[in-house]
């Protein structure tokens, strides 16, 4: 049977090739996700190993909770005396004081900031005994920095910027950026740089001064004496040192935040796998549709096999064998394509500033196994329906002309089955969206099958929708296309099952495109709305990258600019309250109310009186969760371990969709400064007269990494990540749209083949080649637009569900009409593209062969 299967496939080369191509793209995505994920994981792992090699223990300040790695600036420091204590502990080989900060930015001599973060700033005591073993930085050129005017930069950044030893750069820490000269270029462990990070390695004293740490350290790095194990060393240190410090392994302290890198890697892999899965699902539709059309056209051949004594079981086996062969070829090619896609994606990510350490492409056996199982499994599963239908061909069909395969029992009951699927899907999705007490994983487990059932259900009812949709969509095309357009419309309507199945594949990709664009628009609008409501300042001063913090010296400089009336700084830090982590804001009680609205729901606005002493403004959600009312008392603990007894004087209810992600508790800056370590500002709100931009910019000249934006520009900038995210999602979804285009090409090629006699007649009675091409093209466009219509419907429904689930968070449901129109236009163009090959085939058809009798 396999031999017959292979011969049958070889006879229908184009159809087989197009079907295989659909599998290749889907499997390619999955295998790319696996290859990229494994490669990045290896990179991250090797980086972790090489970064912390040689450092057996890290001594740092004990904090009551884990300080987020993004907030190393807020980690309490330890006094210089700890270093002496450490060195006296038996078993210690070498120990050095260390400063590691994530917000030391490098800028070129022109002041243009470099990199997208994290921005490592390291104080390294190169002269200390054994220091070389306690740092990941390995000099390639030059020497380590000495004194306040020198810096060593990482090799990756130096290469990207074209920097050499001796070049002048600006280094921003506390206060205005300082001019420094590059004394050396270093590698980070085994790699040129740590992902997208920039590194500025300074003399320890220079770093302490740059970051305003006095003579204190962030860490003391320790290596064990010969013969002492790392664990023994850590035990000894823990025994000998005061309880105000903590002793950890280097990996546990993770001062270069490599764990967050691994998290990113994990997420990238999951996202790629999800989109690979979508592409596979679309591929499954294409395969099922192609198989069922091909089998319908081969009903006479199959009937002949039956008439010659082939059993039903053998016919089914033949069809499944064909699918298996295609699945195997497609998967094998897909795995190869996956490696190429992975390379492409990693260079796309690198150019988008998400470069990860390169440790070589990992092509593991799990990639091969998973890709093969997915590719083969999906192809065979997709073929099962058509295969079981093909067995229903009666042997007499061989003797008759143009007999069709009878619809399966399943097909006849499609409406009730689809209704059941849609109902179940609605139930799952509603539960995922609204049911209380389910965690994110649980919701995901409901959403996945819910969305799958939604797609399948819509695909099943779509034959009922295809006729009216084709009729409506075809009308305007009839105007444009004349007789060719009108025939195209009728062709699209004549086999609604086929048109619908073809369109459904496109529907999946497009519905997800519509979904992300509607949700993106909602996020954008909610955010802009929230910012307009909250920010009453003319200007907002923040970091040029939009997410890191700024030095208070920048705010002080702006305060002196001409035309500026008020500059109100906002400082943030982590804290613990009611046993959970939360954020605390420090504000200037005299000015904050004039530039930022907290949306006071109860109690007093933030004012010198209300925030005096232990007065605090809390967010309504926080107050409700912990049963706080105006006048209630509660306690927060800072990273330093200070316990603040606070009293609620006001409850704010700002728009929930808060792009500034302010803390839930707001206190006066004076109390904040006493108990919290963070000395940087999240933002500074500026109220100023008229056009003060030039004056403010001039005041900020010494701060290349700080910018002042008008309130409107600030809102736009806060939104730029939405556009970035949408861009990436569109690219990933484009792959599944491409798979569905193969489906359209396939269906059209098969339809043209099937209708060759009709086409011959049309040519004979005077249809020009041009008109034939137009007819096929218009049918393709109609099919694509049906897919677009279904996709828009399903996408809007999904987006509506999600936005209403998050409506209490302030997420608006807003339809980006322009984008939807653009998607429809793209779908129509895709239809035109898909029709190129089939239309050419149809036009080239010789009327004589078409009219010849068998």
């Amino acid at each position: 049977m396999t031999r017959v299967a292979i011969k049958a496939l070889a006879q229908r080369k184009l159809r087989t090739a197009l079907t295989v191509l659909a599998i290749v793209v889907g499997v390619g995505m999955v295998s790319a996700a696996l290859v990229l994920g494994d490669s990045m994981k290896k990179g991250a792992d090797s980086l972790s190993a090489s970064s912390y090699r040689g450092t057996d223990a890290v001594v740092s300040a004990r904090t009551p909770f884990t300080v987020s790695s993004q907030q190393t600036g807020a980690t309490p420091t330890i006094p210089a005396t700890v270093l002496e204590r450490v060195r006296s502990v038996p078993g210690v080989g070498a120990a050095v004081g260390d400063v590691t900060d994530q917000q030391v930015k490098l800028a070129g001599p022109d002041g243009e900031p470099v990199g997208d973060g994290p921005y490592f700033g390291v104080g390294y005591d190169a002269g200390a005994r054994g220091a070389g073993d306690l740092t990941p930085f390995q000099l390639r050129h030059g020497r380590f920095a000495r004194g306040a005017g020198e810096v060593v930069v990482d090799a990756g950044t130096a290469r990207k910027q074209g920097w050499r030893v001796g070049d002048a750069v600006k280094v921003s820490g506390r206060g205005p950026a300082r001019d420094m000269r590059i004394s050396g270029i270093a590698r980070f462990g085994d790699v040129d740089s740590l992902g997208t990070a920039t590194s500025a390695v300074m003399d320890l004293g220079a770093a302490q001064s740059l970051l305003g740490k006095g003579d204190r350290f962030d860490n003391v790095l320790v290596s064990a004496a010969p013969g002492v194990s790392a664990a023994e060393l850590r035990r000894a240190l823990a025994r000998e040192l005061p309880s105000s410090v903590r002793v950890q392994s280097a990996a546990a302290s993770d001062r270069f935040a490599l764990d967050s890198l691994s998290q990113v890697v994990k997420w990238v892999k999951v996202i790629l796998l999800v989109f690979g899965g979508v592409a596979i699902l679309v591929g499954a539709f294409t395969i099922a549709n192609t198989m069922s059309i091909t089998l319908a056209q081969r009903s006479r051949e199959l009937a002949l096999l039956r008439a010659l004594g082939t059993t039903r079981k053998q016919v089914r086996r033949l069809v499944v064998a064909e699918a298996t062969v295609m699945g195997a070829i497609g998967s094998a090619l897909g795995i190869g394509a996956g490696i190429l896609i992975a390379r492409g994606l990693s260079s796309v990510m690198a150019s988008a500033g998400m470069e990860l350490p390169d440790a070589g492409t990992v092509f593991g056996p799990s990639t091969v196994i998973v890709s093969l199982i997915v590719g083969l499994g999906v192809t065979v599963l997709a073929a099962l329906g058509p295969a079981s239908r093909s067995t229903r061909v009666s042997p007499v069909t061989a003797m008759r002309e143009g007999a069709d395969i009878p619809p399966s029992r399943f097909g006849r009951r499609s409406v009730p089955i689809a209704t059941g699927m849609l109902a179940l899907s609605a139930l799952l999705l509603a539960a995922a969206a609204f049911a209380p007490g389910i965690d994110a994983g649980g919701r995901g487990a409901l959403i996945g099958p819910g969305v799958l059932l939604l797609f399948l259900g819509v695909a099943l009812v779509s034959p009922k929708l295809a006729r009216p949709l084709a009729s409506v969509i075809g009308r305007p095309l009839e105007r444009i296309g004349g007789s060719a357009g009108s025939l195209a419309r009728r062709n699209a309507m004549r086999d609604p099952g086929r048109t619908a199945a073809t369109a459904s594949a496109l529907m999946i990709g497009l519905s997800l495109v519509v979904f992300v664009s509607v949700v993106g628009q909602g996020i954008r609008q909610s955010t802009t709305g929230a910012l307009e409501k909250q920010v009453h300042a003319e200007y907002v001063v923040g970091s040029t990258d939009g997410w890191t913090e700024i030095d208070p010296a920048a705010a002080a400089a702006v305060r002196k600019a001409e035309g500026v009336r008020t500059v109100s700084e906002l400082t943030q830090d982590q804290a613990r309250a009611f046993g959970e982590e939360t954020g605390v804001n420090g504000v200037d009680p005299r000015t904050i109310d004039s530039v930022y609205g907290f949306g006071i729901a109860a109690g007093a606005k933030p004012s010198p009186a209300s925030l005096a002493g232990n007065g605090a403004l809390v967010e309504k959600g926080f107050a409700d969760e912990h049963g706080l009312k105006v006048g209630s008392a509660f306690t927060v603990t800072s990273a330093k371990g200070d316990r603040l007894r606070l009293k609620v004087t006001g409850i704010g209810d700002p728009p929930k969709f808060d792009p500034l992600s302010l803390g839930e508790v707001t206190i006066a800056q004076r109390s904040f400064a006493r108990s919290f370590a963070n000395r940087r500002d999240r933002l500074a709100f500026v109220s100023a007269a008229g056009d003060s931009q030039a004056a403010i910019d001039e005041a900020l000249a010494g701060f290349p990494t700080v910018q002042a934006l008008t309130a409107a520009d600030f809102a736009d900038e806060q939104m730029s990540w939405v556009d970035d995210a949408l861009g990436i999602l569109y690219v990933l979804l484009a792959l599944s749209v491409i798979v569905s285009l193969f489906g359209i090409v396939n269906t059209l090629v098969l339809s043209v083949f099937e209708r060759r006699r009709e086409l011959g007649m049309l040519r004979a009675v005077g249809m020009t080649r041009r008109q034939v091409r137009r007819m096929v093209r218009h049918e393709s466009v109609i099919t694509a637009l049906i897919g677009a219509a279904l996709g828009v419907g399903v996408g809007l429904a999904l987006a509506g569900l999600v936005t209403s689930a998050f409506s209490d968070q302030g997420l608006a449901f807003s339809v980006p009409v322009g984008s939807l129109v653009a998607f429809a236009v793209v779908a129509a163009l895709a239809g035109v593209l898909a029709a190129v090959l089939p239309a050419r085939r149809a036009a080239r058809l010789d009327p004589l062969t078409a009219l010849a009798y068998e």
Partner: protein
Amino acid sequence: MFTQLTDAPARIGAPDVEATAVAATDLSRDYGEGESVVHALRSVSLEVPRGEFTAVMGPSGSGKSTLMHLMAGLDTPTAGSVRVSGRELAQMDDNELTLMRREEIGFVFQAFNLLPMLSVEENVLLPSRIMGSSPDRALVDRVIGGLGLDDRRRHLPSELSGGQQQRVAIARAIVGRPAVLFADEPTGNLDSATGTEILGVLRDAADAHGQTIVMVTHDAHAAEIADRVVVLTDGRIVEDRVNR
């Protein structure tokens, strides 16, 4: 059956000077090359005057279909000339041939070849739709009525009998007022009673309407209805007789 058509106006724009509807001169058609060349047609000349009903007969492989395809502009000859309404087809490219077929030639096929998704009326109007011209509604109504299809206008081909489907195909061919109508085994897919009926319809079209018809058939009984019978064997005309 076609008496109501006798007063139909003469075909607009067609030069009436041309007394010959279609003429083949020294027409040859070879298939293949070298050793394996097949001479399907060997220097055949045939002139069909306007209004004549000609039957082309011959066994399978005699070249009768090839002759029809060449005269209908569906195929290009290896040598010789074909003139339809005085215009030479041999030099035309595909587009010109298509336009020629559209305006001057009608077809009736063995397999009817109606579009399954179009109604009877839409099928009849199809050629004028393709041309983008507005059909002569009065003529269409008379033809459909004359063929007894009035109450079938909205039906789909699949709802009609074979004889009815072939009537629709004939209606489709003659409402375009072609210079010549080619019928390729028009009764081949029909039982003998229905076949006779369809031959009657064609005969009426020739008598009542002056429609020039060239019918290819291997059925001697069918050929009897024509004015003239041309018999082909091995790519040559072996007999050319007038029936009455």
